[in-house]
């Protein structure tokens, strides 16, 4: 479920832009209660993921998140006593007092679940399309050591995953009853500590402690058209979300009674939300048909340009 380089305009965009787009989608989910808008934000994330070639990853994430969302949807009506339309009475319960399930609290539970799913989709897209190393490189001038530590930590997660699979395979090959999962976790943890000691030794040998803040200019790259297109889309989504909130578009009140303004403006708002992150995918110039995991043409161009000392916009 981690990042894998693919040949898509979104993967070709710089990390700051890709994360900006995902954050803009998450912002929409956090600003609005309207289920239509939340569904639109989720749909936008899923469609963008599909066009970026990570649709299957997002679907898997969504399936894993469903029980969590279901728990939210079920707990809210039991925990919240707000709302005027009582649909079920539990009467006086010991310690809890009077417990009523209201239609409004039930709907709000569903809204919260939908919001959680939309935010999860936005950040699943983020982890699937944004190169973590490139993202951490943005922070190296702020705190080089923290950026390096975070990079190493994120790199170690898939390594440990592979370690676990290898050890589990080895365990299955041994005769006798299958060993417990605790034994597996213990072995992986011991391996992680060994690896940490190795990494620390390697860092020491390479003079990690003596490193200084990198100069400002050496990692700056000019903006590509994908950077510009997705950057503009992210800004437009954020502006639309904030502007729509101020203008009261897609107003949705849950308490004390349900009220929604599903007018033409709300529908147009939702359609714009879905369309904006998809428009930059129309421009596939410079995106090669290379296999998943390989460098696309833009990546290769950048690599070549970097070796020459410049990059074309």
């Amino acid at each position, binding site marked *: 479920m981690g990042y894998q380089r693919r040949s898509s305009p979104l993967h070709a965009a710089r990390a700051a832009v890709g994360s900006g787009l995902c954050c803009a989608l998450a912002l929409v989910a956090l600003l609005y209660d309207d289920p239509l808008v939340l569904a639109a934000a989720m749909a936008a994330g899923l469609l963008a993921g599909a066009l970026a070639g990570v649709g299957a990853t997002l679907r898997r994430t969504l399936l894993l998140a469903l029980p969590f969302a279901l728990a939210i949807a079920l707990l809210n009506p039991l925990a919240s006593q*707000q709302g005027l339309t009582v649909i079920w009475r539990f009467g*006086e319960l010991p310690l809890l007092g009077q417990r009523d399930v209201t239609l409004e609290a039930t709907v709000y539970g569903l809204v919260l679940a939908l919001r959680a799913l939309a935010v999860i989709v936005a950040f699943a897209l983020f982890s699937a399309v944004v190169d973590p190393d490139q993202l951490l490189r943005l922070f190296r001038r702020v705190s080089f050591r923290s950026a390096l530590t975070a990079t190493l930590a994120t790199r170690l997660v898939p390594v440990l995953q592979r370690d676990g699979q290898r050890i589990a395979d080895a365990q299955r090959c041994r005769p006798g009853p299958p060993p417990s999962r605790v034994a597996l976790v213990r072995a992986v943890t011991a391996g992680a500590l060994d690896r940490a000691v190795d990494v620390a030794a390697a860092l020491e040998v390479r003079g990690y402690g003596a490193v200084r803040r990198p100069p400002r200019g050496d990692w700056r790259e000019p903006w590509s058209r994908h950077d510009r297109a997705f950057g503009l889309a992210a800004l437009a989504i954020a502006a639309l979300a904030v502007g729509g909130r101020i203008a009261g578009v897609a107003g949705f009140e849950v308490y004390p009674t349900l009220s929604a303004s599903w007018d033409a403006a709300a529908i147009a708002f939702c359609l714009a939300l879905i369309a904006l992150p998809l428009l930059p995918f129309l421009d596939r110039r410079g995106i090669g048909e290379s296999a998943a995991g390989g460098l696309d043409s833009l990546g290769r161009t950048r690599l070549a340009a970097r070796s020459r000392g410049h990059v074309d916009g």
Partner: protein
Amino acid sequence: MTKRRTVALAVAAALSATVAAGCGAGAGETSGEARILVTHDFGSRVIGARIQQDVPESETVMRLTERNFDVETRYGGGFVQAIDGTEGGGEGGKVDWFYWVNGILADKGADEVDVHGGDQVWWDHHDWSGSDRIGAVVGQFPEPFAHGAEGKRYPVVLQCASSAETACQAASDQLSAVGVHASRQTLGTNVETEVLRVMVGTWRELRRDQALRLIDRGPASSGVFARFDADGRSLALLDPRGRERVTATTGAGLVAAVKLGDQVPTWAITGTDEDGVEIAAQALDLQRLRDHFALAIDGGRDVSLPVLRQPGA
């Protein structure tokens, strides 16, 4: 098998308990009408008054209020922050919304207090720097005598001093006029805590009572903004901050209610002398007590307590 049977029995018992506790679909059966009053500054200005027909079983004070007024809540919906735009917490944070059901201050959040047919709910927005413990008010007369509290009616006892026979008869007649039957007892008779007492007599005779002696301790303890002097012949009428505004002497009466701990309220029909007690007993009238926290009668004129402005100004 035995274990399975025990579990089945426990589940059946739990289900029976929830059903017995009032579990069921929908808002429940209706039980008559309820009244709600919203005022400012100790009842001096009415913001709104509504009558809710067919109060369902699941109705709470919060739902009744939200059904009839524009309410803003805090802390998970149990605390009212604003009603019809009038916010609590202003003027140094010592102005807030308080509510009484049938003249009795509730000690729970408005979302936890049930409303029953015939109940009267009173919300008032006031400065609580003088007292935050106004446990009982007289402004919802004939409550709490007519419908009691939390759906339970209480027996009413009229305890009269021997010198106040005429006033006692007047009080009895006034109660009968609103359909409340009160049994007569001699002053000082011990009664159970769940009995509504109406005490009639001069303050010199009543002040030994355990509940009524709160009035001598001042508004911070009693919630009554009036205080008799040491020999009970003069009555100081106080403003919301507990400062003396008017001093009434001969022929002054007082109708007030106090609540000691978990007991039901005790009403005082008293005065500086026998004449004062008599005019106080005559003031035990729906029209004269309406929307007053407590009522003083000075020189034949009704003075709502606390005193917001100089009488006659």
